[in-house]
């Protein structure tokens, strides 16, 4: 799939994020929009998965450690065919398979239950260790939030991945700079984030997290890096793609009203047309 097509998919995923959070009148659009390009590349360019056999043993795994970003994940899973398109309208509603935070037993394609921040990297490590024990060639991807890196367990897990040389694991940090209470640097500074991961024994790559080509190349570099895990620090914009949501702390966990939803979708559709 060429870059243009991937951009189109990412744009459609962004439209779905807006519709999903509007329908639910709940959810997390900001940190979902920021990760849309990353998930697009993973599901439509990189990951070996089978929507007809979501628990296929040899599949690549994805752990959404920043578990609140379910809108982007469910949108990608629907686009890929894991869940029926119309089902995304049930997001966060009673009796739905699409819980507010991901549950592996509810949603096909969800490889790990997350929601309480800081836990996903440990689980991804466990999957990567199992892959090595079983001589499987699947890869494990984990999406981390930047605010989430304030959790101590992330650094416990960072040590583990380096100690056990988990080169079948790639972490992607959605580095959008904002958390619920404000900018990371004001709430609890995580910088210099790249130096920290380096110091913990990881191979680090820094990219523009909205540049499809850079995401593809970084994932490729991670795959060829042996003897250590790789983290791709993807500089992103929270709320990316919707002008009034971009870089706004307030859109972390707020759903758009009808007017905002319509404005956002009009913008995104125009964007889609510009991609061609």
């Amino acid at each position, binding site marked *: 799939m060429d870059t243009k097509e991937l951009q189109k998919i990412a744009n459609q995923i962004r439209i779905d994020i807006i519709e999903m959070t509007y329908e639910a009148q709940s959810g997390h659009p900001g940190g979902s929009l920021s990760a849309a390009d990353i998930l697009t590349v993973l599901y439509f360019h990189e990951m070996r998965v089978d929507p007809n056999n979501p628990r296929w043993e040899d599949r690549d795994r994805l752990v959404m450690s920043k578990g609140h970003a379910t809108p982007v994940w469910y949108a990608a899973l629907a686009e890929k065919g894991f869940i029926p398109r119309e089902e995304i309208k049930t997001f966060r509603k009673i009796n739905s398979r699409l819980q507010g935070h991901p549950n592996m037993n509810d949603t096909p394609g969800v490889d790990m*239950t997350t929601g309480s921040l800081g836990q996903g990297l440990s689980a991804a490590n*466990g999957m990567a260790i*199992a892959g090595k024990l079983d001589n499987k060639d699947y890869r494990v991807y984990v999406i981390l939030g930047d605010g989430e890196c304030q959790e101590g367990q992330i650094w416990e*897990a960072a040590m583990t991945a380096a100690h056990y040389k988990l080169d079948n694991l790639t972490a992607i940090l959605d580095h959008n700079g904002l958390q619920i209470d404000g900018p990371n640097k004001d709430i609890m500074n995580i910088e210099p984030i790249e130096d920290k991961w380096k110091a913990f024994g990881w191979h680090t790559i820094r990219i523009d997290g909205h540049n499809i080509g850079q995401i593809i190349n970084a994932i490729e570099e991670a795959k060829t890096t042996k003897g250590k895990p790789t983290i791709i620090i993807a500089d992103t914009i929270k709320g990316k793609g919707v002008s009034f949501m971009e870089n706004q702390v307030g859109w972390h966990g707020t759903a758009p009203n009808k007017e905002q939803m319509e404005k956002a979708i009009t913008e995104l559709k125009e964007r889609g047309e510009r991609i061609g």
Partner: protein
Amino acid sequence: MDKIATRDAYGKTLLELGSQNNNIVVLDADLSKSTKTNEFAKAYPERFFDMGISEQDMIGTAAGLATCGKIPFASSFAVFATGRAYDQIRDSICYPNLNVKIAATHAGLTVGEDGATHQALEDISLMRSLPNMTVITPADGTSAKALIKLAAEHKGPVYIRLGRPSVPVIYQDTQQFQIGKGIKLKEGKHISIIAAGIMVSKALEAADALQKEGITAEVIDIHTIKPIDKDLIIDTARKTGRVITCEEHNIYGGLGSAVCEVLSENYPVRVKRIGVKDTFGESGTPDELLKKYGLTSEDIVMAARELL
């Protein structure tokens, strides 16, 4: 009477399990000599993971391994295995109902000299309030061995509570165990003593002492606190009308609470709870601590006299 620590039984059982099933993996948090997982580490180094002093990461890693068909035994002292990693056990193991076994040694007062920070007196309470979790507290080495094997076969999260010091062997090797089914060790008609863990042998001693006074006590080992054997508890209460619970745990939230829940909903009788009375422990030898905090066979005998 022979004595063996339940943690020693754990170490030996892991070796057996490791030879039978390649999917058994063991994790520890820098306590492998104390938890006895070091024997497994020697025999199956490729399936042993020392996670260092990071219980939260250990539990999360175990969860990830379980999603790929492994049967992880995550091991540490009870106080760290539960309290330190509670949120990880809740969200990464119990909510997705993953096949992780948490083997917690050094539970209760009998850790001894390390004092209050190392004496888990609330672990049963924490673990039994988590949906999908099975909670097992073996009374001796024989039952520990059998129940750990059953835990390995059970699909889903299991918490296994083990102790540091050697405790008397109660069961013959031929004894059959079933998760969720208690064992009546002694028939009686005047009073029921329902115990778990190391308090089972104290309950048996108390029953012998009471017999000399002409009081016959029914002694029951509730080795599985969750799911609890409701039928056995109701039956014995119906028979004797008086119940004493005994546990090396806070009286709140553990075996005593679980038995009271069953009885108050089904067959209310008077209950006296032997346990630590909502306080932290302190440094001392295990026997000194059991005495100071009211967990001896004499304490059980006194409770029986009060009830009769």
